[in-house]
Structures are given as structure tokens and as C-alpha cells.
């Protein structure tokens, strides 16, 4: 026994810095920005410096991520960090989200006279956390990433210290977030206990090890309970019904750029961790009955949750009078659509099909991030300082007074709705395809037809609330004085990028879809 331990300590640590380059760059940049802020005189220009450094760091992270793109799959740090297409594509989504959030926040920190450096460093740390969630091959790393992300986001949500709503938002997020982290942690602990083997070896938190040990140990029920708790924990993070209750309050109270970030970034990161854990640790294994049972249990639960999430999100959004609340519920609904793809990935029995479904989910989340951040860019600008104008009434008749802004918002709303030629449409098409591909593969898979039909009908419901904003902007007359806001450079840039992104993803998504999936399936050739 002792000799065995000695051998382990003598082993060369499996260190590979090039594999965690994106995470390293972002973390170092976060520290640098914090120091820059500390040693700089508070002035109007400091936000350009810290913002610029943040953008440069995110750009560098994107480049390092692309350099890893063709390296295939791998592992480092004894399986703690993995390298695959799923991780890299999620990392790119996070970089896009954070970069756009930096652009969105530029004018806002100016209006509110907030310390820009602090905000930007928090954002970078949150980004590092998101990246770790996507790259972790071990439950511990995923949990660490989640906490790094969460703690930074709690602070960001309460960043407008003097505003009660912002405080409330931060507090709520903190309490419920900690609660859900605890669920996740208990789940991890139970899984660790459940993976103890018959011959007495300790449990494991390594995802691939877990997959091998499911149903082999003396306490199979522990793994079941652990998986259930983790499902709840992740469900909280990505705001699925019935674990979504915190979302509207937190999204409404948080400063608008932070809301934009939270709806796009941490949600995608939650999906990254969720999919990684459940697809790798609890897969479909035909030979092991316990694993089969676990697999079908979480899959069914998730299918039910997907339906609930779509229905609750869309129907609650119908009755909102506040734009930020409406977009909060819409983000719940979109998590539901993405879950349909996740369930399809879980049900896939072969690797290529699973990667395709994962690619569909990543594409969907990227499309959602771009269109959502675009919509929030307009909302930020119209809300002005203090987030005062976020009611739907504030949008009455602005359509022809501020045509460019309203046209941009209309484009984003149509994309959220899923009108052709926009990113949202393509996202829905690929996710639906992933789901319908499963039909007929197994007897119970008619459920995927049902999921798609539910998603489609929900989309029709969502038309009402997205169009409502378009209607008040263009079809109603303004009764009070209103001057179109001057569009600052940073927001103009963000709007241009997101609008171009929505159209690009909607019209020429081919190259991206190809890049996201590893195996190139035969397309447009009949069998």
C-alpha cells in the first residue's frame, strides 16, 4: 500500500500549459486589469484602458482557442482538463459574450460613474470560470469554475451599489445561487461515494471514471441520488422550470449590461458543464443495466423539464410589462429549446450523432447569445442611466423617431422569434433536426416528435410577446416627448457586430456548423 502511494507521488505531474492557454490568458488579464485600476488615477479615460485590455485579452484567448482547434482530443492535469471540440466551441461562445458585454458596459460605467476597472476584471474572472466549466474533465474542476463564475456574477449583479433593485437582485442571486451550488456539491459528494468499487478503491470525481463505475459499486443508489441532485443544481444555473423562479427578479434588478451577460454567458456555461457531466459520466451503456436505467431516468426527467421550461417561459413572458422581465422569461424559454437538443444528444447511441446534436446546441446557444446581447444593447441605450426606462410603455412610438435603433431591435426580436434568414431560425432548424434524427432509433423515441411539436407551438406563442414590442415601437404613436438617444461608439460597434452576426449565422451558417462538429456526416447524398 505504501509503495503504491510512493509510486503515485513520484509520477510526473501531467502539466500542459498550452492546453489551458485561453483560461490562463483571461485569468492573467483579469489580474492585470485589477492592478491597472489600482494604480491609475480615476478618470474618464480609465474605462478605455481597462476595456481595451480586456478586449485584447479576450481576442488573444480566442486566437489561442483557435490554435487548439485542430489538435483533436486530449487530456491534461491527470484528466482534470480535457480538450475537445465541445470545449473549444463553448469557449468561443464565452469569448463572444464577454467581448460584447465589455462593449455594452463602456457607456454604462460612464453614465453611472462606476469603477470600470473593477467591473472589467470581474467580467474576466467570470469568463475564466465559464471556460473552466467547459474544459473540466472532473467534477471538482467544473465546480470550481462554477463558483469562480458565480461569485464574480453575484458582485456584478449588485454593482450599482446605491440602487435598491440592484442590491435585491444581487442578494437573491447570491442566496439562491449558493443554494443551488450546495445541491451540486452534495450531488458530487454522493457520486463520489457511489463510485467506490467492490474491492475498496476510493470513489472518483473523474467523469470518464464515473462512467466506467456506474452500477459496479456496492451503493448504486448513491449515484442515482447524486445525479438527481446535480440535475437540480445545474437546472438552477441554466434556469429551467421549475428551478427558474429566481431569474426574473435577478434579471430585472441587475444593471442591463450585466443582465445581458447573465442571460447569455453563465447560461451557456451551465449548459457546457451540464452536458459534459451527464453525457460523459452517465452515458448509454448497453451492457450495464444500472447505467441504462440511470441514463433513461435522467433523459426522461430532462425531457419533462424541457417541456416545462418552454411552456413556463413563454407563457409567463406573455404577461410581462417590463422589457427586461420579458427578456428574462424569454431566456428561460430559449433554455428550453436548447434542452431539446441536449436531450437529443443524450439519446444518441452513436458518437457521431451525439457530436452533431452537441454542435446543434452550441450553435443554438451562440445564436441566442448574439441576438440576445444585441437586443440588450438597444435596451441599455433606451433605459439610460439608472435603468429607468425599461417598461414596454417607454417603447411606444419610438420606431420612426429612432429608426436605426428600432430596426436593430426588430431584427433581434425577429431572430429570437425564429424568422428565417436570422440566427434564431437556423438555431431552431439544427436543434429540431438533432431531435428528429432520434425518431425511429428506439421504440420510445416518438417523444422527440412530441418535443419538437411542443417547441414549435411555443415558438408560435412567443410570436405574441416579441411582436408586441415591435407593435408598440412602430404601430403606436408616442404621446410624451422623447428624443432619440445619441448612440455611443462602443454600443454602435456592439450593434453592428451583433446585427451582422445574426444575419451571418442566419444566411451562411454552413461553415460554422461544419466547424462545430467533428465528424463530417454525409450530407445531401441520398442513401
Amino acid at each position, binding site marked *: 500500500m505504501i509503495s503504491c502511494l510512493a509510486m503515485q507521488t513520484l509520477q510526473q505531474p501531467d502539466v500542459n500549459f498550452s492546453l489551458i492557454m485561453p483560461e490562463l490568458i483571461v485569468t492573467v488579464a483579469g489580474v492585470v486589469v485589477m492592478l491597472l485600476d489600482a494604480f491609475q488615477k480615476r478618470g474618464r479615460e480609465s474605462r478605455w484602458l481597462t476595456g481595451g485590455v480586456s478586449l485584447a485579452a479576450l481576442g488573444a484567448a480566442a486566437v489561442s482557442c483557435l490554435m487548439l482547434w485542430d489538435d483533436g482530443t486530449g487530456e491534461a492535469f491527470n484528466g482534470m482538463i480535457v480538450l475537445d471540440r465541445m470545449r473549444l466551441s463553448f469557449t468561443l461562445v464565452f469569448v463572444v459574450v464577454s467581448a460584447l458585454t465589455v462593449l455594452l458596459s463602456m457607456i454604462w460605467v460612464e453614465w453611472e460613474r462606476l469603477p470600470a476597472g473593477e467591473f472589467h476584471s470581474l467580467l474576466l474572472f467570470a469568463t475564466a470560470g465559464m471556460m473552466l466549466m467547459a474544459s473540466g474533465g472532473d467534477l471538482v474542476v467544473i465546480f470550481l469554475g462554477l463558483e469562480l463564475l458565480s461569485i464574480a456574477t453575484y458582485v456584478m449583479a449588485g454593482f450599482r451599489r446605491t440602487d435598491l433593485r440592484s442590491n435585491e437582485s444581487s442578494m437573491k442571486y447570491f442566496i439562491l445561487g449558493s443554494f443551488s451550488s450546495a445541491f451540486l456539491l452534495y450531488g458530487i459528494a454522493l457520486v463520489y461515494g457511489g463510485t467506490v468499487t467492490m474491492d475498496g478503491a476510493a470513489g472518483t470525481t473523474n467523469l470518464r471514471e464515473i462512467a466506467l463505475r456506474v452500477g459496479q459499486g456496492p451503493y448504486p443508489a448513491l449515484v442515482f441520488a447524486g445525479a438527481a441532485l446535480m440535475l437540480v443544481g445545474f437546472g438552477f444555473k441554466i434556469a429551467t422550470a421549475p428551478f427558474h423562479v429566481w431569474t426574473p427578479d435577478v434579471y430585472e434588478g441587475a444593471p442591463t449590461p450585466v443582465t445581458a451577460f447573465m442571460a447569455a454567458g453563465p447560461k451557456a456555461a451551465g449548459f457546457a458543464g451540464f452536458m459534459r457531466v451527464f453525457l460523459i459520466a452517465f452515458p448509454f451503456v448497453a451492457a450495464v443495466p444500472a447505467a441504462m436505467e440511470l441514463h433513461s431516468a435522467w433523459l426522461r426527467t430532462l425531457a419533462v423539464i424541457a417541456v416545462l421550461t418552454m411552456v413556463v417561459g413563454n407563457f409567463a413572458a406573455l404577461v410581462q410589462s417590463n422589457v427586461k422581465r420579458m427578456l428574462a422569461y424569454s431566456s428561460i424559454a430559449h433554455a428550453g429549446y436548447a434542452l431539446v437538443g441536449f436531450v437529443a444528444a443524450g439519446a444518441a447511441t452513436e458518437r457521431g450523432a451525439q457530436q452533431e446534436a452537441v454542435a446543434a446546441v452550441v450553435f443554438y446557444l451562440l445564436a441566442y447569445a448574439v441576438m440576445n446581447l444585441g437586443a440588450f444593447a438597444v435596451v441599455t441605450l433606451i433605459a439610460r442611466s439608472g435603468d429607468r426606462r425599461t417598461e414596454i410603455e417607454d417603447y411606444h412610438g419610438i420606431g420612426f423617431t429612432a429608426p436605426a435603433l428600432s430596426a436593430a431591435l426588430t431584427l433581434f426580436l425577429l431572430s429570437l422569434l425564429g424568422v428565417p434568414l436570422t440566427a434564431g431560425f437556423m438555431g431552431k432548424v439544427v436543434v429540431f433536426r438533432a431531435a428528429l434524427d432520434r425518431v425511429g432509433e428506439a421504440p420510445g423515441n416518438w417523444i422527440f416528435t412530441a418535443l419538437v411539436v411542443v417547441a414549435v407551438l411555443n415558438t408560435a406563442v412567443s*410570436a405574441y410577446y416579441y411582436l408586441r414590442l415591435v*407593435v408598440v415601437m*412602430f404601430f403606436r404613436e408616442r404621446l410624451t416627448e422623447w428624443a432619440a438617444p445619441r448612440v455611443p461608439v462602443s454600443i454602435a460597434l456592439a450593434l453592428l457586430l451583433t446585427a451582422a452576426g445574426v444575419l451571418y449565422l442566419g444566411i451562411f451558417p454552413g*461553415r460554422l456548423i461544419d466547424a462545430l462538429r467533428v465528424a463530417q456526416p454525409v*450530407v445531401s447524398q441520398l442513401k
Partner: protein
Amino acid sequence: MERYLLTILILLPAVGALAAAGHALAPYRRESHYRWIALGVSLATFLLSLLLLRGDSASAAFRFEQDVNWIGAIGARYHLGVDGVSLWLVLLTTLLVPIAVLSSWRAVEKRPAAFYAFLLLLEGAMIGVFVSLDLLVFYLFFEASLVPMFFLIGVWGGERRVYASVKFFIYTAVGSLLMLAGIVALWAYFDTFDYPTILRAMTSGGALPYGPVAEFWLFAAFAVAFCIKVPVWPVHTWLPDAHTEAPTAGSVILAGVLLKMGTYGLMRFNFALFPDASRRFAWFFVLLAVVGIIYGALVAMVQPDVKRLVAYSSVSHMGFVMLGLFSFTEAGMQGALYQMLNHGVSTGALFLIVGMIYERRHTRQISDFGGLSKPMPWFATVFVIASLSSVGLPLLNGFVGEFLIMLGMWTSDFRYAGWMNPRVMTMLAATGVVWAAVYMLWMLQRVLFGRVRNRENARLSDLSWRELGLLAPLLLLMLYMGVHPRPFLSRSERSVRLVRERVVAGEAGGQAQLRPRGAGE
């Protein structure tokens, strides 16, 4: 040129829309510029679309095909083509849009740049619907036509425009989203969106990758979308609101072209892709068609508003088109196609006429009028001609279409459900013609004839040269199509026959076959 003609037809209006919108930024802009841009672009599109008649326009094959890769990763192709079924619908579209532009000449004062931009965008999308041969591209244009129409109704419509526009959007979006699910399912089965490729795979003799139950759901997903668009009773309720609230140009386009997307879609996609389900559920559609004919006519009769009356008459007329399609006879289907054109021409003209009187009096209530033939003889003349064409008077176009449809249904030897007799159905439908005469002539009598009871009506100015000029092509078409339908029918004949064969081929239980037929047969 030949390969790109259809793309040009789609893009030219879109470019015109950009030009109109962009012109709003020009320093030398004048309000009148926008309508000249719109008129120029739409006329140019019409003239270019006439090139479609060149060559062997009676061929059953797709002509002017363009087939390039669009999104390779998902197997979507940019595939366009036109055949006998879509040829006349494209021409109808390109004809009606310049007329719609002319009709808005004085009526649209609010934000003309945006108005004409949306109108032109709509034209591009409508042409796209009729010529796309890739299901994803088809869906794209089908949905894309929704957004400009939504804005046309919502910004430039009447008092209840917001309600009408949202209702229009949601109704049609529900249907088309179900169709999207169907399209994605077909894509999952065949791994392509390409319509001819899917059709070839279906008819190549192998077994279908899905069973009859799945075929039913696929069929239903497409059929619901198209039936809402047509609209078939009982999902027609968006139509009276949308038509009544839309600006004149919007109503003309809506009635003239948008409704045809539904019947066109049924013919092109439902019949060809799901022939078995089409046959199995034909009785249901025949029933809905007959109910729609009679219901539309009866409701039209009691409308106090002229525009609403015309709107309900559309429900009745589109019922005839549905009946013709599901008669599964060549005469019936040809008649249905012909009736689509007739309805576009005559209902389009009726909406224009209603718009003209609305511009003068700002009311459409039948009770506000009476004796208009005295101050406005020209107006009365064209109104009577257009109404008679809509009723189906012999020598005018409506007669040809309705006659062919009823002939087709009468002679149909297709076995619907056991209790359904095609002849009984024909007779029931024929009562619709009688009802049409009743509500139209009664309306004419109350609006045009008798004494001038309301003093405001006594001094109305008659139609201007512009108004007469924009109605003239439609009136001429009514006469021409009424006495000489041959050029129209001969060009669609072989394509329609192909569709019909595809549907009825499996009736005897044999393998569906697609046989190209020579001209000599």
C-alpha cells in the same frame, strides 16, 4: 441570363426596397420620389417576368432552373425553377404589384419610403415562394412574406390595425411553424431539402422511410400551414380582419397573391410529396371546401361593410379552388389553377374599387352609399364588370374557372368516403354561385343604384385617368381570360397532369409512377 432570371426577379424588388429606404437619407429627396422608384422597379420586374413565357412554356419540366449550394453543412440548396403551375402565379404577382403601387399614389402619405420598401420586399418574397424548389428556401420565403405584410397592415392600416396585424401574423405563423417541423422531419428522413431530389427518392420504387402514420403527420403539418393561408373554413377568421384593416395595396396583394400561396402549396407539396395521405383525407378537404363556399357566401351577404363583404367572398371563392384541387380530375385541377388567377384579378380589382370610394368618402358602409352611378358613371361601370366577373358571368373569367371546377368534381370518379357523392358535393357548391350572385348584385344595387340619398354622395368626382388606367389591365384580363382561356390553360396543362398522375397513380394500389408525357398524347 436564363439561369439567373428568377433570382433577378426576386432580388430586383428587394434592391428597389433598399433604394427606396436609402433614398430617405438623400438630401434632395421628395415625397413623390419613393413612389416613382417603386413604380419603376415593379414595372421593370413585370416586364422581366414576361421573359418567363419564352421558350417551351407549356413544358411540364422545371425551366429557368438555378441550383447552387447554399448551406452545404445541412444540405440546403438555393434551387429555383418555374413550371406550368407556378408560371402564371409569378406573372400574377408581378402584374398586381405595380397596380398596387399606383393605387397607393395618393392614398399613402404617412412614411412613404417605408411603405414602398415593404411593398417591394413583399413582392420579392412572394415570387420566391412560387419559384423555390428547395423546401428550406420555400419556407424562408413563405415566412419572409409575413413580415412586410405585418408592417403594411400594422402601420398603414385602419383603426383596428394592430389587432388585425397581430392576428394575421400569429395565425399564419402557427401554421407555418408546424410546416417547419414537417420540413425538418423530411430532411431527417431524406437528408436533403431539395424537392425534386426528395420526389425522385420517393418515386424510385423503394419503400418510404416512414410508415402511413408518419406520412399522415407530415401531410398534416404541411396541410395546416396551407389551409390557414388559403384560408379554409374554420381557420379563416384572420382573413376578414386583415383584409378590412389593410391599406388598399395590402388588401390587393393579400387577396391576389398571398392566399394563393396556400393552394399552390397544397398542389405542389402536399399532393406530390404525400399522395397517399392526400387521397385518404380528400373527403375531409372536399367537405371543408363546400362548407367554406356556402359559409363564406352567406356571411358575405349580411356584411354592412363593402370591404368585409369582398373579404368573405374570398373565403367562398377559395373554397372553389380547394374543391377543384381535391376533385383529382384534370379539369378540376386546371380550373382550380385558373380560378386562383381569376380570384387574383377580380378580387384585386374589387379591393381597388373599394379603396377608391373609401379615399373619397372615408367610409365603406353600404348604408352610407346609394345611387353612386349618377355622379360616378365610370366608377359604376367598372364596379359592375368586376363584380360580375367575381360572380362568374359567362364571357368573363370567373365563369371559366368555376365551370371547370364543377365539371371536374361532377365527373370525378375518385372514391371519397363512402357517404360522399361527388355530384351531391358539386350541387352544394353550385348553390354558392347562386349565393354569390345574390350578395354581389344586392350590394351593387344598394351602393350604385336608386336615388342619391346622402347629399355628400352627390358631388363625388368620378374616376381619374390614373385610377381608370390602373384598373384597365385587370378589366381587359377579365374579358380576355373569359373568352380565350386557351393560352393560360395550355401552358399549365402538362404540369397539372403530372401532379394529378402523381396523386391518383397509387389509387389502384400500385406503385406511384412519374411518367413524363409527350406532347402528342
